[in-house]
């Protein structure tokens, strides 16, 4: 049996993968061009569902970009060698996903040509404006961190740089959660639990993405992941998944306790059609229960199970964000509490939303950008984890 395909074949496969990634990116850019040309009329978004599929992709990528850095933090800040050797890869993934997510967010603007306005006019009370600084600062901090790790003369600085990144990503994910926390009148949002929830969720999703990429790299290089490292990382991911589920459950349970919120909870968890379906089947079952079974059941827990669990967690992440972002807007605003309202502008009615092809292309274009940066980065620089002969 040939276990190692010839080098030439791998070379070709690499270029084919890069070409495929490039094609996805091009499709995303074309979709953005169409959206600018025709306006958002060609998307499923409207005056009630103002943020749609592009935001689901963008927020997934941004949250995960922060969470994947957990791997480096455990290495640099908490000094665990098994994670330390993986820190550069985590840094690369973070930059890649941040770039993908921000590109999607930017290209979905009504006037993406005015990005320079966003860079030169700051409204100090706007959390969006803060995030512009947080995201660009994150890029810079991670680049410096990578430099201190990969340039031997700078190695002694990698711990403080790692600490900076550690703090920065907490603030960044807090900032992302706060975007929703500050929406006082929307029943799905406007609660202080969102920033910590986003942080814990980011740990789980970041770990899942890291597992997928690490598995791919190891398979590509015919390496086998050390069983001890595998077990530790798998268990950590399991803990994060449980913690994230706990936060999501707390969010819904507190809502259910408030009489003014029960209608909203009934909608999102029972009567809302696609939203409860995605929540229970997509997020709870596929995104949590199945992965936990694959991680902790003694019959599973091997390389392939962990890979499948990670993919399911990622799917669950998209499901949760779809329910949170789009389902949260679909539920009508309570403008006149105590009254049944109706109007030509969707007052009192559930908002309708069907994602359109251009939006979906734009979202996948962002994933394509993350893929390209990761694939090319690993090819040209040394990001592959080097296991020490003996793991502590």
């Amino acid at each position: 049996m040939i276990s190692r395909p010839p080098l030439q074949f791998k070379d070709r496969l690499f270029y084919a993968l890069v070409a495929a990634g490039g094609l996805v990116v091009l499709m995303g850019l074309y979709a953005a061009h169409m959206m600018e040309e025709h306006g958002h009329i060609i998307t499923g978004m409207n005056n009630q569902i103002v943020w749609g599929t592009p935001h689901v992709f963008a927020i997934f990528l941004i949250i995960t970009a922060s969470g994947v850095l957990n791997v480096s933090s455990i290495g640099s800040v908490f000094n665990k060698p098994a994670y330390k050797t993986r820190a550069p890869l985590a840094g690369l993934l973070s930059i890649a996903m941040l770039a993908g997510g921000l590109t999607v967010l930017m290209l979905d603007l009504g006037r993406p040509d005015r990005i320079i306005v966003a860079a030169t006019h700051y409204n100090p009370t706007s959390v969006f404006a803060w995030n512009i600084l947080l995201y660009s600062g994150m890029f810079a901090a991670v680049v410096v961190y990578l430099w201190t790790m990969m340039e031997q003369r700078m190695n002694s600085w990698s711990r403080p740089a790692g600490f900076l990144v550690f703090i920065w990503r907490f603030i960044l994910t807090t900032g992302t959660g706060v975007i929703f926390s500050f929406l006082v009148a929307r029943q799905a949002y406007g609660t202080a639990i969102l920033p910590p929830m986003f942080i814990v969720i980011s740990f789980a999703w970041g770990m899942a993405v890291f597992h997928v990429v690490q598995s791919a790299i190891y398979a590509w290089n015919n390496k086998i992941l050390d069983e001890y490292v595998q077990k530790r990382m798998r268990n950590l991911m399991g803990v994060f998944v449980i913690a994230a589920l706990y936060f999501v459950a707390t969010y819904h349970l507190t809502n259910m306790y408030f009489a003014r919120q029960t209608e909203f909870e009934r909608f999102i968890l029972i009567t809302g059609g696609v939203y409860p379906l995605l929540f229970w089947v997509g997020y709870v079952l596929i995104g949590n229960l199945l992965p936990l079974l694959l991680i902790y059941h003694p019959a599973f827990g091997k390389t392939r199970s962990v890979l499948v669990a990670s993919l399911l967690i990622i799917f669950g992440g998209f499901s949760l964000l779809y329910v949170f972002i789009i389902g949260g807007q679909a539920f009508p605003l309570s403008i006149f509490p105590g009254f049944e309202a109706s109007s030509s502008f969707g007052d009192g009615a559930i908002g309708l939303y069907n994602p359109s092809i251009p939006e979906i292309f734009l979202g996948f274009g962002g994933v394509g950008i993350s893929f390209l940066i990761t694939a090319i980065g690993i090819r040209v620089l040394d990001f592959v984890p080097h296991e020490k002969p003996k793991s502590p």
Partner: protein
Amino acid sequence: MNSIDTRRRGFLKTSLGAAAVAIAPGMLLFDMAHGKSEAVSSKVRWGMLIDTANCADGCNDCVTACNKENGLAGGSSSGGLSPTDSQWIRKVELKDMRGGRTLSLPMMCQHCENPPCVDVCPTGASFKRADGIVLVDKHLCIGCRYCMMACPYKARSFVHEPLHDQKPDVPRGKGTVESCTMCVHRVDSGQQPACAEACPNKSILFGNLNDPDSEISKKIRTVASIQVRADLGLNTGIRYQGI
């Protein structure tokens, strides 16, 4: 020596005269175009008091007038508004869930004193004038729609399609957010907003909330009026009577 001086003086006089003749009409036109150069002042706070008891069920005159004044397509006879169409003012039909009482009222930007849309806008495109009118600067809006997420009154619309036949007084733009301007272009020239003028029952009373002698202030002192979602503490410029 002397003759040179005279010539120089003559030249200066002629050129000054010519310059004055060239610039004066421009200055005059500039003044005419800009009208009063007086700045908007916070001594004024524009507001409205809407009497829902007089607002007729099925009457849409304020909406039609707004669409016409501001060049919004919603006024077309074909009807059938889509969820992507801009609506700066809309009629909302309400039914009390306990008693079953029904009422009808116009809903638009409430021109809050503490507007959430202004707080969240990343570029400062959403802003409040000194006289309390909340507007969007169409040159600064990047179309992120965060203000639409933040508005408790669903008052804002996003321009989803290219625009044609815009009104010169009412700038709009594809890919930007817009909402009721309280007909700022009319107010600045001493007129009333189009909806207030069009209401057949005079249910929309427009005026200066800061002037104790204005009709609106006097009425607010004598009748019970509310702010919609007063619990949010936004201190709206639009007040309702009879809800």
